[in-house]
C-alpha cells in the first residue's frame, strides 16, 4: 500500500478565491518568515517592525523604498514583454550592467564638461547598451535556434567581468587609491533630487511612465496583442502574420532597453560612479517581481514596491537586529513560492490517494 499526492484541476475558480489568494500568500509567507526569525532567537515582532512598519512610515525610509523600486519597476516591466510572449530573458542583470557601462562611459568621456545634454545622452546610451546586449540572445535564437534562456543567463557573467575589467583597467580613477572604481561623476552627470533636501530623483518618474505605457500597450495596442498572441497561441499569431522572429527581437530590445535604462539610472542617481557590484542582483530580483505581479504591468508596479520595502527593511535589520541580508533573499523566495503555490492551489486541489503497491 502506498500513498500519493495528486493535483486535480479545479473546474471553476471563484472570484473571491482569486482576490483572497495573494493576501493569504503574503500572510503565510509572513508567518513562516516570523517563525524562522524566532528560531534564530530574535523577536518576530521587532523584525516585523523593522522590515515592514519602518520603511512604510518613516519618510526618509519611504524615499529609499521608492528609489529601490525604480530599477525593479523598469526591469520587470521590460521582462513582462518577454515573458508574455513566452520568450525567456533571464539575463536582465547583464543588460542592466551594460546600461550602466554605456551610460557611465558617456559620463566618464564628458568628465569636466557641463551642460543639460549630458544626462539625456547618458540615458540614451544606457538604453542602447541594454538593447545591444539583449539583441545577442535574440539574434542567436532567431538565427540558430539556440535557447535564449541559456545565452541570456551566461551573458550576465560576461557583463560582470567586463565591468570588472573596465573599472580595474582603462576606466580606473587615477586618484582613487587603486580602488576598482571610475571617477566620481560630476553634478552634470548625476540625476538630481526632485525636491530640495530629498533623495528621490526623476528616475522614479520614468519608471512610472514605463508602467503607464506598458499598461496601454497591453490593453490597447496592436503590438501588445501580437505579443500576447505569440505567447498564448503561436499558430494563431502565425495566422495573423505576426512575424515570430521579429517579435522575439523586439521584446528582447524592449526589455534590454528598459534594463539598460534602469542601469544608468542606478549608476547616475544612486552610485555616482561605476564600480563592481552595482547590479546587486536587481536584474534577477526583477524576475521575481514580474511573476509576483502576475506578468501585469500594474501588478509589477505593486510588487516592485513590496520587494523594495523588504530590501530596505533588510538593510536596517542588518544593522539593528544583526539579521543576515540573505534572510531577505530567503524571504523573497518564500513570498514567491507562497504566491505561486497559492495560484496552483487555485487551479488545482490536492488529493491524497491510496494505492495498492
Amino acid at each position, binding site marked *: 500500500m502506498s500513498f500519493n499526492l495528486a493535483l*486535480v484541476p479545479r473546474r471553476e475558480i471563484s472570484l473571491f478565491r482569486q482576490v483572497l489568494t495573494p493576501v493569504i500568500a503574503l500572510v503565510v509567507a509572513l508567518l513562516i518568515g516570523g517563525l524562522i526569525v524566532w528560531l534564530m532567537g530574535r523577536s518576530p515582532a521587532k523584525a516585523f517592525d523593522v522590515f515592514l512598519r519602518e520603511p512604510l512610515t518613516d519618510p526618509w525610509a519611504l524615499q529609499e523604498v521608492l528609489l529601490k523600486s525604480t530599477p525593479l519597476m523598469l526591469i520587470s516591466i521590460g521582462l513582462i514583454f518577454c515573458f508574455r510572449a513566452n520568450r525567456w530573458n533571464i539575463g536582465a542583470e547583464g543588460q542592466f550592467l551594460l546600461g550602466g557601462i554605456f551610460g557611465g562611459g558617456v559620463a566618464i568621456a564628458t568628465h569636466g564638461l557641463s551642460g543639460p545634454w549630458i544626462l539625456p545622452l547618458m540615458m540614451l546610451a544606457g538604453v542602447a547598451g541594454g538593447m545591444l546586449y539583449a539583441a545577442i540572445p535574440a539574434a542567436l535564437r532567431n538565427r540558430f535556434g539556440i535557447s535564449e534562456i541559456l545565452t541570456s543567463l551566461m551573458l550576465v557573467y560576461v557583463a560582470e567581468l567586463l565591468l570588472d575589467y573596465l573599472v580595474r583597467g582603462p576606466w580606473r580613477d587615477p586618484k582613487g587609491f587603486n580602488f576598482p572604481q571610475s571617477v566620481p561623476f560630476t553634478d552634470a552627470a548625476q540625476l538630481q533630487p526632485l525636491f530640495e533636501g530629498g533623495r528621490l530623483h526623476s528616475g522614479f518618474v520614468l519608471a512610472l511612465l514605463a508602467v503607464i505605457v506598458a499598461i496601454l500597450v497591453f490593453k*490597447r495596442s*496592436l503590438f501588445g496583442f501580437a505579443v*500576447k*498572441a505569440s505567447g498564448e*497561441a503561436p499558430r*494563431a499569431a502565425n*495566422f495573423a*502574420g505576426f512575424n515570430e522572429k521579429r517579435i522575439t527581437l523586439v521584446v528582447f530590445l524592449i526589455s534590454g532597453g528598459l534594463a539598460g535604462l534602469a542601469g544608468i539610472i542606478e549608476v547616475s542617481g544612486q552610485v555616482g560612479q561605476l564600480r563592481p557590484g552595482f547590479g546587486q542582483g536587481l536584474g534577477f530580483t526583477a524576475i521575481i517581481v514580474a511573476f509576483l505581479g502576475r506578468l501585469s504591468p500594474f501588478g509589477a508596479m505593486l510588487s516592485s514596491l513590496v520587494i523594495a520595502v523588504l530590501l530596505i527593511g533588510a538593510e536596517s535589520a542588518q544593522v539593528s537586529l544583526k539579521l543576515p541580508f540573505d534572510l531577505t533573499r530567503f524571504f523573497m523566495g518564500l513570498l514567491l513560492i507562497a504566491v505561486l503555490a497559492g495560484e496552483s492551489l487555485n487551479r488545482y486541489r490536492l488529493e491524497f490517494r491510496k494505492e495498492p503497491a
Partner: protein
Amino acid sequence: MGPERIRLSGITKAFGALKANDHVDLTLHAGEIHALLGENGAGKSTLMKILYGLLRPDSGEIRINGRRVSLPSPQAARAQGIGMVFQHFSLFEDFTALENIAIPLEGRIADAGLRAQVEAKARHFGLAIELDRPVHTLSAGERQRIEILRALMQEPQVIILDEPTSVLTPDEAEALFATLDTLASEGAGILFISHKLEEVRRLCSRATILRGGKVVAETDPRAVSAAELAALMVGEGVLELRPAGEHALGAPMLQLDGLSVAPDGVHGVALQAIHLTVQAGEVVAIAGVAGNGQSELYAALSGEGGRVTSGQVRMAGQDVTRRDINARRALGAAFVPEARLGQATLPQGPLSENVILSWHATESLGRWLLDTVRIGTVARNVIERFDVRTPSPDPLAAQLSGGNLQKYVVGREIERKPQLMIVDQPSWGVDARAATHIRQTLLDLAAKGAAVLVISQDLDEAMAMADRLAVMHGGHLSAARPVSALSRAEIGLLMTQGESPARGAA
C-alpha cells in the same frame, strides 16, 4: 436491450445567464448506440463533459449501473468505466501515439508491455495506427484513432464520442462504425454526437434531441427520416442550398503554376507540380481523402507555412510565392484554416479581439491605440449576420460551441469582403442549417464576383458547392473539371487512385 448503464436525471448547468443544460434526462443501456443530437450550442458537449467529470452540474443526478455517483474529475469518471473522445483533439503534439495512449493510464508508461496490449486492442477493433510516430505528423483520422484507442484501453463500459466523424473520410468513418458496432455487441454503451444525420440513422438505435439545453424529443432515428430529425433539432425545415444565378466569370484570382511544396514534417506529403486556376466568380472545390497533401496546400496558399520548392502562387495576377499571409490579404485574399481554435482564433481572447487576427493587415483598426469601438462593431456584425450563438455578448473564443466558433471564423473573413476566399473544411462540425448558411454565403460571395476555393473532405459538400472540382491524391492534384461532367464514381476513383497518366492533366 441490455441492463441500464447510465441514467442522467434533471441535469442543469448554467454559464452565467445561459442555461446550457436545462433539466436534461437521458438513459443509456448496455449494447446501445445512442445519438445525442441538436443544433450548434444546444448543449451536447456540455452534457457529455458533465458525464465525463469535466464540468459539475448545478443540479441533477447521475446514476451509473443504478448507483448514484458524483463525478468530481475525469479520473473519477474513468474509474466508473466512462471513456470520452473529444470534439477538439486533446493529444500532446510532440509525443508519440503510444505515449499519448499511456498518459491517462495511471501508473503505466509507454513500454513493451503496453505496446503489446495496445496492438492487440488495435487489431481487435481494426484500428490501424503507427504507434511510434509523433502526433504532429498524423492526419486527423489517425489522431482520431489514437483518441479512440486511448479511451478503449481503460475497458470502458460507456464511450462518449463527440463529433468523431466530422474530420473523417468516408472510409475512415465506415471503419469507425464497424469498431463501434463491435464495441456495442460486446456490451458497451455508446453515446454518439454528430451533425451527419444519415450516419446517425445508419448507426444508432435511439436518439435524444436537445434544443436550447432542453430535451425536446427521444426517438428511434431509423423510424424517422433525416429531414424529420433535422426539423426536431432546429424547430423548422432546413434551408435548401440556392445555386448562384448565372454570372460571368472574371479574371483569374488564384493561379498555381507547377507548385511543388516540401512535405510538412517527416510524414507529410510533398506536393508535386500542382496546376490550378480559380477565376473571379467561380467556386472550385478540392476533394480528396485527408492526409493527401491538403494541409501542405493550404499552408502554401495562405503563406502560413509550406516550403515551396518550385513553381508559383499568383494572387490577383501577382506572384506571392514568397510573400507572407498579410501581403496576400492585402491583395484581397481571405483564409479560413482547418483548426478554428488556436489557429483561426486565440482561445483565451474575446471574439472582439479575435477580429484583429485577420483584420489588422488590411483594415485601419486605430493608429496608436486599437479602435475598440470599431473592433467591437465588427464582432457584433459577424455574430448577428452569421447567427453565432454566444453565451454572453463578447465571450472568449474557447467558450463558444464548436459549430458556433466555425460560423464566427467564416463570418469574420467574409466581413472583410474578400476577392479571393480560401476555406479549409468550411462546415466542420456545423449543424445542417448553419452548414447550409455558410455554403450559401460562400456561393453568394462568388456570385458577387469573388473567387472561392474550398478544400473539403466532405464530397457531398464539395459537389453541392463547386462549379469545378479537382481531387487531391498523394500530393497530386487532378485537373479541375466541371462538377456537372463528373460522376461520383469517377471522383471516388480519383480519390483512391489518383489521375491515371493516360488521361493527363489539363
